[in-house]
């Protein structure tokens, strides 16, 4: 598998798509830093979590108002870009039968490709976090605390798992679909649905199941909101955004679910400990890991069962 991993890494690092996405990562880092520079001094950050403000301080442009939103947008694209042609391009180019005629286990091919994608993604996201940390440290002059460093590592891990899901999905389509364009479009279609359309569909379904008006009783409103939240949590994008919010924003109070105004009044504005944040995101993290594992396992099984012909 080492030879395949090495070749895949060499392919990724010399490909145009790597440079394009690395440029996007650099732009996102710059945008995040710029957003932080706009408002970090005026934001009331809790003591011990000032450094994380670099990642959470919103900017002035509403669409890309913070780094986590940008990252949630870019990571799926990186994942899809690394996986959409993993198998079908080898098949259509006739190189798959050439590799499999050598003394290598068939799973080494898919494992090597997945691992190379993970390494590339880790380098990209890691570079982004390091760039922001480095320049941010120079900008605010406050070093990160140990807990902040741990939270950033957790954020990195979450991002990699999230990216692994999209890469796994793209690889799955590259195993299933013969044409590279088909696997790319299908992956992008699913990304669009879970990133944009599900947020339109969720309120519609919720209001169909639980019709509410401004005069509806509170119980109905709670049912409506919870149903909407449940539907949105089918989206890996939403899961990731919720989880990252809890990890890099320790001031996130209460739960990730619905908090009523009366409940909010009794909440003490105190940062959550790392353990408490972990407890909050545990279902999200396990959900994302399971989704990535399911996608990869499906690709793995289907690839191992496929017949490889030269043409």
């Amino acid at each position, binding site marked *: 598998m080492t030879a395949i991993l090495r070749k895949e890494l060499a392919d990724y690092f010399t490909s145009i798509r790597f440079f394009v996405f690395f440029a996007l990562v650099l732009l996102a880092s710059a945008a995040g830093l710029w957003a932080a520079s706009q408002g970090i001094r005026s934001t009331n950050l809790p003591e011990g979590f000032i450094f994380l403000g670099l990642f959470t301080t919103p900017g002035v442009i509403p669409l890309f108002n913070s780094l986590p939103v940008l990252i949630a947008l870019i990571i799926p694209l990186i994942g899809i870009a690394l996986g959409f042609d993993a198998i079908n391009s080898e098949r259509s180019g006739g190189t798959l039968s050439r590799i499999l005629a*050598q003394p290598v286990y068939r799973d080494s091919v898919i494992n090597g490709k997945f691992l190379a994608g993970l390494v590339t993604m880790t380098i990209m996201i890691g570079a982004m976090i390091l760039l922001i940390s480095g320049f941010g440290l120079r900008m605010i002059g406050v070093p990160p605390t140990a807990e902040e460093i741990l939270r950033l590592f957790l954020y990195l891990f979450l991002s990699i798992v999230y990216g692994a899901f999209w890469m796994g999905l793209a690889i799955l389509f590259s195993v299933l679909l013969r044409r590279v364009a088909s696997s790319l479009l299908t992956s992008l279609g699913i990304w669009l649905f879970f990133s944009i359309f599900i947020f339109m569909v969720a309120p519609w379904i919720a209001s169909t199941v639980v019709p509410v008006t401004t005069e509806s009783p509170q119980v109905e409103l709670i049912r409506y909101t919870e149903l909407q939240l449940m539907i949105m949590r089918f989206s890996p994008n939403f899961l990731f955004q919720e989880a990252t919010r809890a990890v890099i924003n320790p001031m996130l109070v209460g739960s990730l679910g619905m908090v009523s105004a009366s409940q909010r009044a009794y909440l003490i504005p105190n940062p959550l400990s790392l353990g408490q944040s972990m407890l909050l995101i545990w279902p999200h993290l396990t959900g994302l890991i399971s989704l990535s594992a399911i996608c990869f396992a499906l690709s793995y099984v289907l690839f191992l069962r496929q017949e490889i012909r030269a043409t």
Partner: protein
Amino acid sequence: MSEKLTIETQDLTKRYNGAAVVDCLNLHIEENVIFGLLGPNGAGKTTTILMLLGLTEPTSGTAQVCGFNPTREPLQVKRLVGYLPEKVGFYEDLTARENLRFIAELNNINYADINRQVDEVLEMVGLTDTEIIEVTGPDQQQEKTVGKFSRGMKQRLGIADVLIKKPKVLFLDEPTSGLDPKGINQLLDLIADLPKRGTTVVLSSHQLSQVNRVCHSIGILSKGKIVEEGTIDQLNRATRSGGQQRIKVETVSPDEKLTTAIRKIKGVRDVTIQENLLLISTDIDTGVQLAISQTVVQHNFPLLQMSVEQFSLDDIYMKHFKEN
């Protein structure tokens, strides 16, 4: 040629959706020979090769390649076997050497030996530096990427690709397609030389003249079954013993009277005249030749030459597919 079997199959069968693509195939290929696998499209040649490589599992039956079962021990088989498909694929953005190095690495060839072996196989297939290096500027040159190679160069690179692991068995699927006549000759010479280096070759091809030129024995596949197997001489005899033979008699201005007399000989099926030649189809019977020669002489025609026509590989091949 030794008589040790390198490839042996027993009732090897592959079915897709119930339909047999390879049907109870029994192949016996000796060590260090070139075996021609012939058959029309869809006869099951590629499926057979894929099963022998361990790339697809047989529905039933067994196969042994170099003493290993390709289904149960695919890695052992792949260590010893090279496969060149008809449409060989390379990483087009890599150079020939980079492509070959990658395959060498997959075969766990010692790092210290890789470059030497790459140069060796490139030389063997005639891909010299003048062909694979391009000039990019004054005093500047670099290796071409495979994407810039011609079809023939890619085909030769494909041969180099399978030779780098020094295989015991080589499966070649239409290896000469896309080559010019000079390239075909060079390649056939190279293939003909492989058994001397200890490599058994299975050559799947539609080019019967090429198969005839290099193969020691052949197998003809039809609808997933071997319908003929053996050396060309053996098949010739089998074809003749299975039916008719054609006797060619050369004389001077044969007439209808003579042909009528020959037709009356027991065992003669048909007689045609082509200028000074009599083409006589007969049943297999040694006595018929003597009777024909006597008839020619008795009718006062000179018997200049008489021969039993040998069947060419084309005849053997076409005879079978015409019959079916």
